[in-house]
């Protein structure tokens, strides 16, 4: 049997995947890159057979590669696109085609035999629920800021009074475009309690006590390796403006690294990007863990060998 391949499921314009694929290519590991979102608009062919007690055989072909579905050593799941139906389809027909592709193709790609997933899409999906994150973070011993999830205006007001200053964080991001066509987003910023109104009841909101931090830390865990980078920013939410950030690789306290590993183990993840705020006393307060985030720019800024760590994880036979 041929050398087993690494299957990279990602968008065409994903620089983090480019780094990993280039490294695997340098190592002579076969790589197949695929965006499942391209499936319905053509260019990907798949057939899978189950016979002889359900044993799988099959293959998948892109414009440049053919993949034996039974000979995949690992899958790198790096935020591929959702399925896009052909424009000529009516809404009902489009929904039908998309759901067949999700349950058919994605189902197949999520159940490849003897294959390591970094990370498994079902585990990613589970780990993206904030409530799951809080439960897990608390179980492994992280310090978590006081948090409220609510659609009740009175409770939001009381939380601000008891824990102010308070920030609002979306429970899930969705794309928004302003009237001028430019994308807009929601940063983590303090809430003025006077701004709260009845539209809190329109859906669920998350409020959290502000950590009295001196800096932020992004801790990226890749397999057994833990990389922490201190990020200094004039903004409460450092993602607001990358041009003004400074980065410094720092050691991870032993108990924090242990808690990160326990967190990932608990949720069946091999990769996670943890965000912390650190106080003047050197305490690390846990904010969140992104199970599918980017990291390549941190390697560029600090030289931490994160591409090599990811390639190690994908190269190893599960």
């Amino acid at each position: 049997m041929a050398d087993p391949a690494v299957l990279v499921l990602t968008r065409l314009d994903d620089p983090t995947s480019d780094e990993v694929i280039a490294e695997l290519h340098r190592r002579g590991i076969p790589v197949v890159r695929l965006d499942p979102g391209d499936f319905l608009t053509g260019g990907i062919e798949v057939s899978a057979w189950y016979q002889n007690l359900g044993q799988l055989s099959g293959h998948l072909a892109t414009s440049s590669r053919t993949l034996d579905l039974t000979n995949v050593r690992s899958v790198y799941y790096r935020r591929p696109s959702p399925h896009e139906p052909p424009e000529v389809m009516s809404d009902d027909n489009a929904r039908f085609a998309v759901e067949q592709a999700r349950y058919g193709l994605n189902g197949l790609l999520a159940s490849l035999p003897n294959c390591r997933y970094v990370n498994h899409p079902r585990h990613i999906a589970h780990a993206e629920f904030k409530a799951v994150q809080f439960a897990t973070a608390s179980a492994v011993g992280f310090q978590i800021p006081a948090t409220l999830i609510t659609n009740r205006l009175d409770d939001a007001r009381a939380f601000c009074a008891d824990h102010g200053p308070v920030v609002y964080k979306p429970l899930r991001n969705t794309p928004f475009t302003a009237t001028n066509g430019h994308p807009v987003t929601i940063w983590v910023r303090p809430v003025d309690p006077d701004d709260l109104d009845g539209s809190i009841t329109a859906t669920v909101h998350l409020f959290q006590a502000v950590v009295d931090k001196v800096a932020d830390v992004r801790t990226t865990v890749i397999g057994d390796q833990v990389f922490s980078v201190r990020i200094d920013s004039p903004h409460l939410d450092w993602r607001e403006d990358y041009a003004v950030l400074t980065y410094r690789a720092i050691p991870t306290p032993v108990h924090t690294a242990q808690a990160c590993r326990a967190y990932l183990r608990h949720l069946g993840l091999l990769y996670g990007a943890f965000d912390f705020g650190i106080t003047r006393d050197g305490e690390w307060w846990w904010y969140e863990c992104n199970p599918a985030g980017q990291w390549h720019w941190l390697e560029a800024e600090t030289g931490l060998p994160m591409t090599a760590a990811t390639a190690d994880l994908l190269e190893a036979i599960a």
Partner: protein
Amino acid sequence: MNRAETPASFTQAWGATRLVPFKGATGVPYARVELDPVTQVTRYYDLDGQIIKCGRHGSNQSQNTSNPTGGGDGKNPTPPDDVNVTDYVPD
């Protein structure tokens, strides 16, 4: 809540009132992308058809658009990383 206000009467949830524009460069710093059939790495081209190093270890601008919260424009939007929808098969 006023008497006329019910959860279903709001045209926008409170959280969506906190939307703000991205700072710095928006839009993608390339004209076209193509997959290298041999290496499976993406090639980025500028308007003149020249290969550019993009979103890798490049300039601040190219990093900006490849960062977790990188922007996009209306014509050729690059969804910010944490805005991308993860497609998965539910149990």
